C-alpha cells in the first residue's frame, strides 16, 4: 500500500442535519484490500459519515477523494466504483432474488459486462442459488443480508460500504457474513464497515476510526486504538460500598475520571504503571485483571464528556 493513494480519503467532513451538528470534522482513509471499521456509540455520526462517503448526503464542508481525485467533480463516475449495503433491507420486492441482482446491474454505466454470468457467480458464492426464483421477502434474515451484499457487488465495485451488516443476525449467520467479508478483502476490495459488535470490529478490521459526538476520537489498528484510549489492562472489581469510595477517590486523584460501570461491577482501564500503583494502594482488594476490549472503549465513550 505504500506509495499508493488511499482508495478513499475523507478530510474535514462536516454535516448539519435539522440544525444539529452531526458530523464535525471527520477524517478517514481506507486502502484497497483493507477493512476500515467505523465505530462509535449511537448518535456518534457513523451512518451520516457513511452516507456522505457514498454520496447519499452532500457534506457541508470537507473533501472526499477517490484514489486522489476529488469525487465532487464527477459523482456519477465515483459511484460506479462503489457498492453500498445499507443497514435496512432495500430489496425490490417486485422481483425475485435473481432479478434483484439483474435489475441492480441496469443502474450502472459503463454497463457491467457478462451480467448473467456475474449473477450466477454471486448466487453460488452467497449460497443463494436455491432461492434464485423466490421473492426476497421469503428469505431468512441471514440470506437477506447475503442478498444485500451480493447486490452491492453485482457491478464489480472496488470499494464496499457495509452499514451494520450483521445486526439482528444469529451467531451462525454472523460468522458466514464475516467469512464473506474476509474473502472480499482478500480479493483486494476496500471495505468500510460500521458495527455495534465489538468482537466483529476486532476480528474484521485492519484499521479503526472511532467516532464520538461527530468527531474522530481514535484512529489506528484495533490494538493501538485500545492502547491509546484505554491502556493495557482493565481491573474488574465489585462496586461495594466498603471499598468503592476509596477506589473512586484514588481514580480522581490520578485524573482518571469515573470508572466504567456494568451492573454492579467497575471496569478500570489502567496502564502497566497505574496497575502497579493500584495494587500497592489496595493490597487487600479482590479484583481481576484482563486485557481491554472495544466494549470498554464504547463504555468509556458513552460517559459524559
Amino acid at each position, binding site marked *: 500500500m505504500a506509495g499508493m493513494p488511499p482508495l478513499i480519503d475523507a478530510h474535514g467532513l462536516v454535516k448539519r*442535519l435539522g440544525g444539529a451538528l452531526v458530523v464535525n470534522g471527520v477524517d478517514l482513509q481506507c486502502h484497497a484490500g483493507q477493512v476500515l471499521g467505523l465505530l462509535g456509540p449511537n448518535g456518534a455520526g457513523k451512518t451520516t459519515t457513511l*452516507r456522505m462517503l*457514498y454520496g*447519499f*448526503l*452532500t457534506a457541508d464542508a470537507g473533501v472526499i477523494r477517490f484514489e486522489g481525485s476529488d469525487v465532487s467533480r464527477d*459523482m*456519477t463516475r465515483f*459511484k*460506479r466504483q462503489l457498492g*453500498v*449495503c*445499507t443497514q*435496512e*433491507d*432495500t*430489496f*425490490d*420486492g*417486485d*422481483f425475485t432474488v435473481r432479478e434483484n441482482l439483474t*435489475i*441492480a446491474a*441496469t*443502474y*450502472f*454505466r459503463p454497463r457491467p459486462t457478462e451480467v448473467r454470468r456475474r449473477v450466477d457467480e454471486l448466487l453460488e458464492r452467497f449460497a443463494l442459488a436455491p432461492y434464485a426464483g423466490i421473492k426476497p421477502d421469503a428469505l431468512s434474515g441471514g440470506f437477506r443480508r447475503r442478498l444485500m451484499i451480493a*447486490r*452491492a457487488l453485482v*457491478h464489480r465495485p472496488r470499494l464496499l460500504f457495509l452499514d451494520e451488516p450483521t445486526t439482528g443476525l444469529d451467531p451462525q449467520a454472523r460468522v458466514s457474513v464475516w467469512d464473506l467479508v474476509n474473502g472480499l478483502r482478500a480479493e483486494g476490495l476496500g471495505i468500510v464497515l460500521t458495527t455495534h459488535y465489538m468482537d466483529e470490529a476486532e476480528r474484521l478490521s485492519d484499521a479503526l476510526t472511532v467516532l464520538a459526538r461527530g468527531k474522530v476520537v481514535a484512529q489506528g489498528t484495533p490494538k493501538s486504538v485500545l492502547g491509546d484510549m484505554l491502556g493495557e489492562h482493565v481491573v474488574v472489581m465489585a462496586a461495594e460500598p466498603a471499598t468503592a469510595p476509596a477506589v473512586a477517590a484514588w481514580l480522581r486523584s490520578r485524573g482518571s475520571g469515573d470508572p466504567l460501570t456494568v451492573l454492579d461491577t467497575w471496569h478500570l482501564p489502567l496502564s502497566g504503571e497505574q496497575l502497579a500503583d493500584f495494587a500497592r494502594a489496595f493490597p487487600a482488594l479482590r479484583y481481576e485483571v484482563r486485557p481491554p476490549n472495544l466494549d470498554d472503549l464504547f463504555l468509556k465513550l458513552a460517559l459524559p464528556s
Partner: protein
Amino acid sequence: MKLMTAAFEWQSRAVVGRHLRVYLKNWHTSFLPPVMEPITLLLAFGLGLGAYMSGGIEWNGRRLGYMDFVAPGMLAYATFITSILQSLFGAFVRMRYQRTWDGQLTTQIELRHVVWGEILWSAVLTTSYVVIVALVLSGCQVLGLIHLELARLPIAIPIVFVSACAFAALGLYFTAVSPTIDHINLPLFLVVLPMGFVSSTYFPLTHPVVATISTVNPLYHLAEGLRDLLLGPGPGAHLAGLAVLVTLMLGVLVPLDMRLLRKRVLGD
C-alpha cells in the same frame, strides 16, 4: 438546470425501465382496470346518459351529439387520472413501503433521476392507456357512434404525454407531503376529483364562477384543446393555454418535488 436536464439522462431511463419490467410482469392485473374504466365510462356516459340527451350539446356555437362531446373529454380525463394516481399511490408505495427508491439511490441513480423516472413512467403508462382509449374510440367511429377527425388523433399523443408529465409532477408533490398513504385521500378528494369535475370533460361548464375557475385548470384546457383538435378547426387557444400551464407546472413543481423528497427520503 441540472434538475430539469436529468429527464434526458440514462439514469432516468433506467428507472423507467425498471417500472416497465414490473408492469410487464403484472400486466394482466395492472393492465385491465385502467383499460376497462374508460370503456365502461364510455358506455355509461355515452350510451347511458347520452340516450337522455337526444338533442345533443351546444359547444362553441355548434350542436354536437353527446358521444362526440364526451369522446375527447375521455382522452383528457384518462390522461389526468391515470398519471396522477400513478404518481400518488404507485410512487408512494415505492417510496414508503417497498423502499425501491432507497435501493436505487445506492447506485449511480440520484434523487433527480428517481423523480424524473417516476414522472416519465407515469407519462409512458398514461400515454399507453390513452392510445388504447383512442383505439376504442376509433372502433366507435367505425360503428358510426361518434364522428371525430380521426386523422388528427396522432397529434393528441405528444400532447397527452407532456400533459401527463405535468399531472404526475402534481401527484408527486402530494406524495412528498403526505405523511401516510391514508393522507393521500386529502389531496385526492379536495384537489384531484374537483379538478376532474371542473374541467368540461364529461359535461360543458356553463356556471360563470365554475367557468372562471376552470381557466386555471390544465385539465379543462386539455379537454377543450382536444375537442378543438378532434371536432373543431384544429389546435387553438386552449392548447396554447395548456402549454403555458404545463410549462409552469413542470418549472415549479419538479424542483419543488425534488426539494421536498430530498428532505423526506435523504433527510438532507
